[in-house]
């Protein structure tokens, strides 16, 4: 058993990073948190940067000039990737939260079926969808402009 330092179910940072026996969904949980923090940091800066449009064209152009260049293009693409993952994984979490994606309760007859049998295909399907959005975004960012 993991040492919880007297705080059951409170593993701190290790609780984020370790997948343990929970598998794929646990790593999606970790990625969900990391992308959420990244999106929040970007969003707070985005509010400030894009507020320049309220002051007119000159201020807008000056503001945009500060965030151009290859580094910012790659950074923006990473934000797009984080959005695609966080949004679609979040939709999966809502479906699970509302009980729409965990299957109906059945009698525990061997071979046992669990809610993972329903949740895992959903998780994989959502990741494939996120992958398609990320590829479409990549094409738009790097090939079509």
């Amino acid at each position, binding site marked *: 058993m993991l040492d919880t330092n007297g*705080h059951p179910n*409170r593993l*701190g*940072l290790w*609780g984020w990073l370790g997948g343990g026996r929970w598998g794929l969904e646990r790593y999606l949980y970790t990625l969900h*948190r990391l992308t*959420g*923090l990244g*999106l*929040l940091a970007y*969003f*707070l800066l985005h*509010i*400030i940067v*894009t*507020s320049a*449009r*309220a002051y*007119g*064209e000159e201020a*807008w*152009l000056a503001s*945009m000039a500060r965030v151009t260049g290859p580094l910012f293009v790659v950074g*923006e693409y990473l934000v*797009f990737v984080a*959005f695609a993952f966080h*949004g679609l994984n*979040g*939709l999966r979490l*809502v479906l699970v*939260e509302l009980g729409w994606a965990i299957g109906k309760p059945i009698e525990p007859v061997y071979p046992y079926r669990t809610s993972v049998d329903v949740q895992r295909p959903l998780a994989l399907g959502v990741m494939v969808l996120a992958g398609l959005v990320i590829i*479409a*975004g990549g*094409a*738009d*960012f790097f090939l*079509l*402009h």
Partner: protein
Amino acid sequence: MRDRTLWTWHVFAGLVILVILGLHMAVMHLDAILGIFNPAGGHPVDWANVVARAQQTFFAVTYVVLLGAALFHGLYGLRTIIFELGIGSGLKTTVSGVLVLGGLAMFAFGAWAAWASHTLARTQ
């Protein structure tokens, strides 16, 4: 407010964000594929496109809704993460207060910017 209520709003805000931010991302970053809401052509951040969108009340309203939903969703998520680190109750109150005040300040500023740009765009 009870955590269960805040959590329900967190989930609801997430769905709102998925729709509006999905549209925003499609307009701003899938423009070469979809080509929507960029009437002047070129890049979505070109001033002519920014003005064309800002002129529409639909965009001004959805920007403000997105701003509020995203600030609440993001800051409540951050609060949850910080609380899970096992901090004391006094620090929890401080963290909540800072996030609420910071969130309200950012909302006021962002909402002003969205509405001011809407007003400015309608004069052009």
